[in-house]
């Protein structure tokens, strides 16, 4: 870290200097479309990421609604099974790689430089490149739906040989799209890690960083470690399909089970990539609205690191039913259950923070509280799935679907929404519309639970995943799930309305928009945050509490 500069500038000086610098020192930025294509500003790129992610969230959501529409009643009503398979696959791929991951990267772009007192990301031009790879990747991926033979139809886990020997011809485009998206997230991760490690305000130690920064640092390491493995897997698929190799083909001495090992070696850390930054957001919001310091900051950091390390040792729990020696099943079962310990530490810390707090229920807090409750439900069903002998009943049923949607929708996505509501005053200078936000929250919470809670029961009763039709005894559960899905889907239009209204106007927000306990560095710059902040490093003062 850079040593302390003796005459520390005050914050007022730094922000006025920033505005003055913007006017004189830089040439005028390009206007219109070119401004967004060429921008290297972390706030603008952050906004681009978030808008892209929101658009993709709706596209992936439409795919989900096609699935739920078909499953509203037993029998085949609306789409044929081939198209149904493409919808389940594309829904998963888009939501994982184009909605959740870019949303977190967008929040990181916006908030990490502000939270650590840096003027921008470490590599601003690379940042621009990382973002603009995404529309290319997902434009390519979505275009496969219009190709002969249709888009990917083998599930988002693209198990070989479904994705090699039996795949549609468009699979090569799918592989290329995944490569580009992977490069984008790797570059984004390198940028974020380089920013956090090298650009903190003078005097800010690692253990002073806000938890969103900490969780993103660890997520960045996870991304750097596992995205290349994903790239390797899809490269092997590419070679199996086009160049006659046999990595996953038993006929040529390969092994389809190897695909699953490689995929889940990437895939399990990937699910933590999608949840660790959510932990960071919730850890910022709960203290702000409980009006208490976060309970157990250091244990939060160590728990996050422990989860990340364990995530490399548990991939086999996705493969209990594939055929695995007893020792392997026991190892993966116990290792998986061990993850409940650091996760439990986090949940108890949040509850301890709430305990005897002076709690108020503004929209960010509502989403954060729903996160804690509903994510924990998802965590518990995860523990049930970790039990190897019981997993044979749950495997590939709607119980699994219920589990990972509980950790991803009211988990990751609610945390993203909580973060958006929390930081909207900083981004736009206005508070989000209170009444509309409340409607959005309650409709979302009801919709999510109506959609995914019945799936636990249909799954335990044996309803298989990724099938367009089902036995009659599942009809009621599925009808409830479908109604909930449409409620949840359409209530997200309220979210768009809230964001647009908030950009246009609303109650003015001061610099410290959420009171004394939201006191990280981002709340020291004016609301809305000027385009350039912290061009002179701020004087970081450790909170005295």
């Amino acid at each position, binding site marked *: 870290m850079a040593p302390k500069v003796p005459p520390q500038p005050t914050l007022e000086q730094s922000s006025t200097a920033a505005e003055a610098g913007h006017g004189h020192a830089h040439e005028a930025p390009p206007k219109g479309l070119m401004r967004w294509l060429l921008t290297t500003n972390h706030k603008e790129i952050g906004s681009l990421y978030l808008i892209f992610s929101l658009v993709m969230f709706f596209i992936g959501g439409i795919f989900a609604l096609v699935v739920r529409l078909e499953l509203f009643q037993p029998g085949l009503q609306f789409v044929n099974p081939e198209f149904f398979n493409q919808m389940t696959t594309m829904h998963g791929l888009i939501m994982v790689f184009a909605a959740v991951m870019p949303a977190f990267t967008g929040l990181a772009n916006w908030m990490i430089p502000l939270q650590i007192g840096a003027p921008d990301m470490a590599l601003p031009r690379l940042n621009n490149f990382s973002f603009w790879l995404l529309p290319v990747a997902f434009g390519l991926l979505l275009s496969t739906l219009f190709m002969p033979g249709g888009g990917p139809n083998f599930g988002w886990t693209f198990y070989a040989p479904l994705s090699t020997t039996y795949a549609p011809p468009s699979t090569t485009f799918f592989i290329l799209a995944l490569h580009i998206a992977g490069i984008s997230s790797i570059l984004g991760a390198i940028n974020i890690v*380089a920013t956090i490690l090298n650009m903190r305000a003078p005097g800010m130690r690692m253990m002073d960083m806000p938890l969103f920064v900490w969780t993103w640092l660890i997520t960045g390491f996870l991304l750097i470690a596992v995205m290349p493995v994903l790239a390797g897997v899809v490269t092997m698929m590419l070679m199996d399909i086009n160049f006659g190799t046999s990595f996953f083909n038993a006929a040529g001495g390969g092994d389809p089970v190897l695909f699953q090992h490689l995929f889940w070696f990437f895939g399990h850390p990937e699910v933590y990539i999608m949840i660790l930054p959510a932990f960071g957001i919730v850890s910022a919001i709960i203290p702000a609205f409980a009006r208490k310091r976060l309970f157990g900051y250091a244990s939060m950091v160590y728990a996050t690191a422990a989860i990340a390390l364990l995530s490399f040792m548990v991939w086999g729990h996705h493969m209990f039913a594939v055929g695995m020696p007893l020792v392997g099943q026991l190892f993966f079962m116990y290792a998986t259950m061990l993850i409940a310990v650091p996760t439990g530490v986090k949940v108890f810390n949040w509850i301890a923070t709430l305990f005897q707090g002076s709690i108020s229920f503004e929209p960010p807090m509502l989403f954060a509280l729903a996160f804690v409750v509903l994510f924990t439900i998802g965590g518990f069903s995860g523990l049930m799935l970790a039990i190897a002998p019981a997993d044979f009943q749950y495997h590939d049923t709607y119980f699994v679907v219920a589990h990972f949607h509980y950790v991803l929708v009211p988990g990751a996505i609610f945390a993203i929404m909580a973060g958006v509501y929390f930081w909207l005053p900083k981004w736009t200078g206005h508070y989000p519309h209170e009444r509309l936000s409340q409607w959005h929250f309650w409709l979302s919470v009801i919709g999510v639970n109506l959609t995914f809670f019945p799936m636990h029961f249909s799954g335990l009763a044996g309803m298989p995943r990724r099938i367009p039709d089902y036995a009659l005894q599942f009809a009621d559960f599925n009808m409830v799930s479908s109604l909930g899905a449409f409620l949840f889907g359409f209530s997200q239009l309220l979210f768009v309305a809230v964001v647009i209204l908030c950009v246009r106007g609303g109650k003015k927000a001061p610099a410290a928009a959420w009171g004394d306990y939201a006191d990280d560095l981002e709340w020291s710059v004016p609301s809305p945050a000027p385009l350039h902040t912290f061009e002179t490093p701020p004087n970081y003062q450790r909170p005295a509490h």
Partner: protein
Amino acid sequence: MSDNEMDTQGAGVRRTVWRSVAALVGMFAFAFALVPLYDVFCRVTGINGKVDTNAQALVHDNMDESRMVTVQFITRNGSGLPWRLDVETRQVRIHPGQTSEVNFTFNNQSGAESWGRAVPSVSPSTATRHVRKASCFCFEEQRLEAGERLELPLVFQLDRDLPPEINTVTLVYTLYPVDGKQAPLQAAAKTIEGDEA
């Protein structure tokens, strides 16, 4: 911030980036290294039912006559090869250490010559390391003329130290086509019927 500090920061960023890139390249290579490692791991531990495709010497001196084990044979056609693979008997009962020979019949049912291979697998996988094959058609690729029938033997033993809880061993042979095969690698075999279709 002074120029000096900017330089330190720039150097720090460069260091982080190069280390990340090294980690990236390492992990990409690791993914590919996992392919042979996985293969070796499966062979050494015998999990996954992967059988050694080299002939092993038979051991003649010790037969465990106190124990009988059922050995079942399953033949399957994997994909795309117009062949049939049949076995003269679906199961044999043998003592561990006893040598047994079973004949398999390959039959090319198409009107053109083609190359194929029977890929072996053992179940339960814990028995894999205890199956000792002295001669197997699965060691090599086969070429069959149009309509040709070919009878090939499997000569094998079960080790005396086969775990006591295993009473049944299943040997599975799956036929796969071999594409673009040039060099003759055919197993020594006797042709029992005419070559012409």
